């Protein structure tokens, strides 16, 4: 499998009143297309920060993030374009825009890229149907949906611009176990069937079952899960 992501010696420190907090400390790993990479660790271990660094929502203090060979951590990279087409985010708290319908939430990333309206709609309907969101739910506002429905809409939104990498931050954290299982299955399908590079960070070790690669994160440091085990 082709290497989609290479992270080398990545570090991030936050300044706080109580002193500097090393959130990510010299992390290096690789993730491939068509595989599910799972990073497990307790709360505060730095896994969300690592995900945000990969998604360019935070900038690293040092290290490299290569996406298909291109270092996005260096200055001059088009991070807006990167966020639009190379990565898709799935969040623990869904982060849908509550005033918009499911369909509108999914078309929004495409609208920002100025994709023609007809094309936006067709793609959004296709994605939502794949996620099991029927026509009625597609017209329902996000704030009237259940957690599972919201997360499926969030995955559809992450897939809207057909990114190479899906970054999922605690995707089951706010769901019951059955619904969480459905969501994880969808993410796995995206890797296996669509060839996406799916990276899931979670504290739920049961997700490790579906992992092609697994890492453990503790105090900002990343270790190979199998090696730990």
């Amino acid at each position, binding site marked *: 499998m082709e290497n989609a992501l290479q992270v080398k010696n990545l570090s991030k420190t936050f300044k706080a009143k109580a002193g500097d907090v090393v959130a990510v400390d010299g992390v290096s790993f690789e993730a491939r297309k068509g595989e599910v990479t799972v990073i497990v660790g307790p709360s505060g271990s730095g896994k*969300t*920060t690592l995900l*945000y660094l990969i*998604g360019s*929502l*935070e900038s690293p203090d040092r290290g490299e993030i290569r996406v298909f060979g291109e270092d996005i951590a260096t200055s001059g990279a088009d991070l*807006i*374009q990167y*966020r*639009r*087409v190379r990565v898709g*985010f799935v*969040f623990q*708290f869904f*982060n*849908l*825009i*509550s*005033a*918009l319908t499911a369909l509108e939430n999914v078309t*929004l*990333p495409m*609208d*920002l*890229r*100025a994709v023609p309206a007809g094309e936006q709609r067709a793609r959004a309907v296709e994605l939502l149907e794949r996620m099991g969101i029927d026509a009625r739910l597609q017209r329902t506002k996000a704030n009237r949906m259940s957690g599972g429905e919201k997360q499926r809409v969030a995955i559809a*939104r992450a897939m809207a*611009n057909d990114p190479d990498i899906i970054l999922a931050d605690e995707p089951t954290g706010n769901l019951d176990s059955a619904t969480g299982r459905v969501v994880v299955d969808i993410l796995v399908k995206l890797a296996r069937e669509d060839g996406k590079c799916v990276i899931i960070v979670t504290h739920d070790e049961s997700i490790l079952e579906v992992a092609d690669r697994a890492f453990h994160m503790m105090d900002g440091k990343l270790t190979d899960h199998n090696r730990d085990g």
Partner: protein
Amino acid sequence: MRSIRRGFKSFRRHPVGNLIVVLLLFVCLTFSLSMLVVRLAAESQVRSIKRSVGNYGEVRVSSEYILEVFERELEKGERQRNREARSMNEEEELADRAKFHLPEEIADAFSRQEHILTYDKVMNAGIIVLNAVNSELAPLAPYATDAELARQGIEGLNRQTLSNLFVFEGNTNGASASDFLNGSKRLVEGSFYTYRDHLEKKPVVLAEKNMAEENDLGIGDTVEAVVVRGSRNNRTMELEIIGIYETVLAERDSGSILDYNPAGNKLFAPLSVVQELNSMPGYVELGSYYFDDVDSTAALKEAFEQEFAEGNRYEFLTDFSDYEKISEPLEKVGKTSLIGLAGALGACALIILLAMAIIIGGRTRELGVLKAIGATGRQVILQYAAEVTCICLVSVILATGATVLISQGIGNWLLSSSTEQKVEEKETRAYTGNYLSDRKLYKEGGLYSPASEEEEAVNLNVIYQGDLLVYGILILLGISLLGMAVPVIWITRLRPARVLSME
């Protein structure tokens, strides 16, 4: 364009929050625009008033001098006065009769002052007309005594001739006589005498319609007027009627039997003719002047005091008090509305700042999501700018409509507050006021015309022009920019990673 469309959609999707902001803005904007409209109306009216009021003045013998002369005469006693009158030669007699008149050369010289635009000279005289009866005055003749009538100083006036007594008003151009200028009289037939008629001392008159009908007189007929002092040389003058006028405003009873002056009692003639009828060549009752602007009043008064006043003998009276009477409440309204406008705009600014802070603050996560899924700062700012503009636009449209409905009421209310104060001040002054200092100006109408008795009502006419829309748009632009300042700062500082992690 897509960002603007998203902003518009977002405006529709947050009806409750946006409606609250729209309502608050609407109230403040309505008040702001009303204050602005009232101020503009007040300013515009003061400007237009300046063109017609406050730019008039007249020169005549001062009240103070008249009182002094009366007091001197009273000190002499009747016997001495009679002795002096009998011993006067013709020149002394003229000087005595002219003591309350203005030498024509002073009136002419003052007209050459800077700022003076037009001028006229006026003389009134009681003249007996032999072939016409003053039907309004005739029934009163039996009640008058010859002694009383003799005291009026009109030669030949007695109970028989009282019915033939008319007032002659002379000026240099019939059309510019104040009664015709202010509309209290209107020429209905024939023509006015001209300045040339005055220069050539052409014996022509304008007669009142009722008087002409009652005496069977018409255009081209003549009236035979007795020249004052005619008893000495027994002279009359034939005057051709060249115009008939009708009285629009009824003249008033001033209280004295001789001053009683019904509509048909006045004839208008060239000044030079009236001067001859009154045997007072070279004298006028007053010089009447229109100057460029009310702001020239002080300069003209100063020039008059220095060059023409001859101590306290002559005075220069202006209609400045009329101007003040009208403009002061309007200026007060203008100032009050400016304060109101400033306050309301301040409130607008505060409301929009608070409202935007609350809206944006409540939608921080939305902003973070937009940035996380690839929106540029510019796209987000444009979207919120469109939303803020929608809020402001709806508010301004509603406020403009409401302003049209209520601003006249606000203006009237402000004006009534100002004029109430003014009336109180005036009533206080009335107890101490000097009767002679409140002399009527010729501009308000000739002798016995009622115009000066009427209070000119001060009105504020709020007229809606394109200006209102322009000002509305400018205010909209201002508050929109202000409203956008908050989201722009917020958006540029926002770190999506931080807000997306929040539960």
